[in-house]
């Protein structure tokens, strides 16, 4: 879809956008897998450096780095991690074993990625002795690029680099081949396990094959399914875009708003899901603001997406200045954030009202009207309700 403004035929712009969307995808995967922010970027940098130590061909290093970024995208939608799916511990463990294979399928579906990327992701959790997952490959059946990813993973997960070194050498012959453990040890002593995060290896991408807008939409759909609110981002996008046009927002503002509508849900991934409380009540506001900040953080360092970060961050602000996290009011809240917050609330109430008609509650329009002037900007409420009516 035409999510971004025209690139005026400059292929570098398309490439940069795709690289940023993929980096964002990696961060979303981290959040879904309940890993720390920045995990995938660190893993990618380590994996690339370790791959050199494992004497891998230079032609595959970019694929290893990209696989490092995409390592956890399979966590989105994993039954052990999706919202309100309380599996017994044993079943949850087995479901988590499938994350690498699901990630491989995601990578294989992104035509712009190097072909080998999917298999590197697929076999990143295999163990030398055959006790890894999902394929239980053993010995030299495990491709070395995936071993680089496994070693990097151990390093990023460790509290201290020395802890990773100790565990890898301790597990030589079990999780890792003795030769790989030895190569890792040499690498560790040579570099001190200090590697600067590199830029996304754009040269390995074939940007014409994947539209970044379509990819972002696909990510949003997967996030929504993971959170148990399928189609939410698309609804919010439609309402927000129509409202922004009615309020005569600039093309740049509309582009930022589109991105924000597709990315705000990412902040709800991980251990603390969005409160299921009524979006119009103050209860849970702190939590919503926290999730808004988390969502914005995923976008901040990505030039193609960063314009949306302030909108996502301010979606828990109230028009009367009593919201969170900054307590901004009226025009101090970006217009995009005001539209986003109203569209999200409308969508949530509308779904709830339609799902429980017997509750005889006020319609979404009536309830939104009631919050106009306090929670929401009255102009925006009118625009969102008009957009909703037009769509209906």
């Amino acid at each position, binding site marked *: 879809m035409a999510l971004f403004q025209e690139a005026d035929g400059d292929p570098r712009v398309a490439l940069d956008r795709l690289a940023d969307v993929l980096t964002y995808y990696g961060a979303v995967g981290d959040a879904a897998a309940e890993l720390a922010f920045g995990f995938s970027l660190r893993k990618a940098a380590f994996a690339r450096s370790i791959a050199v130590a494992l004497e891998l061909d230079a032609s595959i290093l970019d694929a290893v780095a990209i696989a490092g970024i995409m390592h956890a995208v399979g966590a989105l939608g994993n039954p052990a991690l999706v919202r309100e799916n309380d599996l017994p511990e044993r079943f949850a463990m*087995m479901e988590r074993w499938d994350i690498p294979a699901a990630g491989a399928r995601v990578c294989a579906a992104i035509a712009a990625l190097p072909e080998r990327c999917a298999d590197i992701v697929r076999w990143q959790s295999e163990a030398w*002795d055959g*006790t890894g997952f*999902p*394929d239980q490959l053993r010995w*030299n059946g495990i491709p070395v690029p995936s071993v680089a990813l496994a070693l990097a993973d151990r390093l990023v997960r460790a509290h201290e680099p020395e802890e990773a070194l100790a565990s890898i050498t*301790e597990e030589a012959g079990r999780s890792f081949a003795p030769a790989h453990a030895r190569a890792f040890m040499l690498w560790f002593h040579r570099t001190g396990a200090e590697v600067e995060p590199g830029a996304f290896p754009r040269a390995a991408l074939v940007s014409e094959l994947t539209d970044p807008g379509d990819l972002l939409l696909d990510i949003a759909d997967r996030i929504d399914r993971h959170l148990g609110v399928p189609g939410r981002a698309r609804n919010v996008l439609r309402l927000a875009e129509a409202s922004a046009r009615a309020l005569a927002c600039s093309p740049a503002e509309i582009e930022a708003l589109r991105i924000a509508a597709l990315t705000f849900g990412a902040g709800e991934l991980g251990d603390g899901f969005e409160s299921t409380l009524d979006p119009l009540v103050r209860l849970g506001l702190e939590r919503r603001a926290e999730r808004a900040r988390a969502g914005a953080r995923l976008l901040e360092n990505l030039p193609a997406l960063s314009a949306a970060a302030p909108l996502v961050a301010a979606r828990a602000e109230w028009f009367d200045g009593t919201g969170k996290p900054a307590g901004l009011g009226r025009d101090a809240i970006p217009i995009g954030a005001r539209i986003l917050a109203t569209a999200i609330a409308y969508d949530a109430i509308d779904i709830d009202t339609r799902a429980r008609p017997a509750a005889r509650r006020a319609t979404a329009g009536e309830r939104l009207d009631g919050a106009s002037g306090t929670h929401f900007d009255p102009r925006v409420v009118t625009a969102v309700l008009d957009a909703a009516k037009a769509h209906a």
Partner: protein
Amino acid sequence: MIELHERTRRISPTRIHEILLRYGAKSLVDPFMGLPTHLNYLKRHGIAVHGGDVLEWFVRVGEGIVVNDLTILRDHEVAEIVEMIPGRIYALDLFKAWEGVFFTEEQCVYLGVWFDNVRNLRSDGQTGLAILGLWRVFCYWLQKAQEPDEMPDLPPSELAWYYIRQTERWVASNMRRNTVRQSDVMQTIGRQRADALFLAPPPRNALHHADPRIWMWEAWWQGNPYFTLEHAYRDTLFGARSNDPAAYQRSIAGILSEAADYPLLIVATNESRLGELEPIVRNARTKVECYAPNDSEIYLIATA
């Protein structure tokens, strides 16, 4: 010292599962199953699986992780496997022939103890799990004999405990009937029906290049350190009579002919063997698709 193989056959169950999903197959027969970890994966994902192999220890493991739906080992049962039980008489010199050649004296004693202990477990499922766990210890020792300074020294019972516990993590049910059988490929194909047949035929003369980690464990299970694969394969399709290329191709063609009723046939091969297998498969089936995700994994997929 024994040479361990540089190359390992790669069977990727996630890939096989993707192929089965694409063609809507819900059950699968694998007459060359080998170590059936891939069947365990497919089972966990709802496919009814049926495996067969000539080597008995593969079949025993299959009873642990393919047929077995719920049996695992409690702590005291693991303890009864990994250490000598007071009062039980052990043939401690059963594997003395390996002493000083492949293993230390202590390791050979443990092999003798485990040989007896696994035969005293309460169910086939437990026996299968124990065999798989102990096999991993065996592989660790062979690897350590190659690289003594690179791998930590771990007490045999501790290592055995660790691996048996690792192994039983894979026990799961798919609410379907799953089977394994010790039989030749023709028997497995002929006596079992399923939506798909998965074939990863051994290369010509495979028994002469078999990985010692595989055939030595059959020797352990048989309690015969002088066991050879020639003995096990003697009466099979891939025995001594398929040493020449023409006989080998006839054997494969015979299998494909026997498998004519299977709606979906998946033949796993690699780049080096593709030229040999593809013409035989195309000769046997009219609709054949070649799916090659990488050089080491090529699938010839034949449909009805």
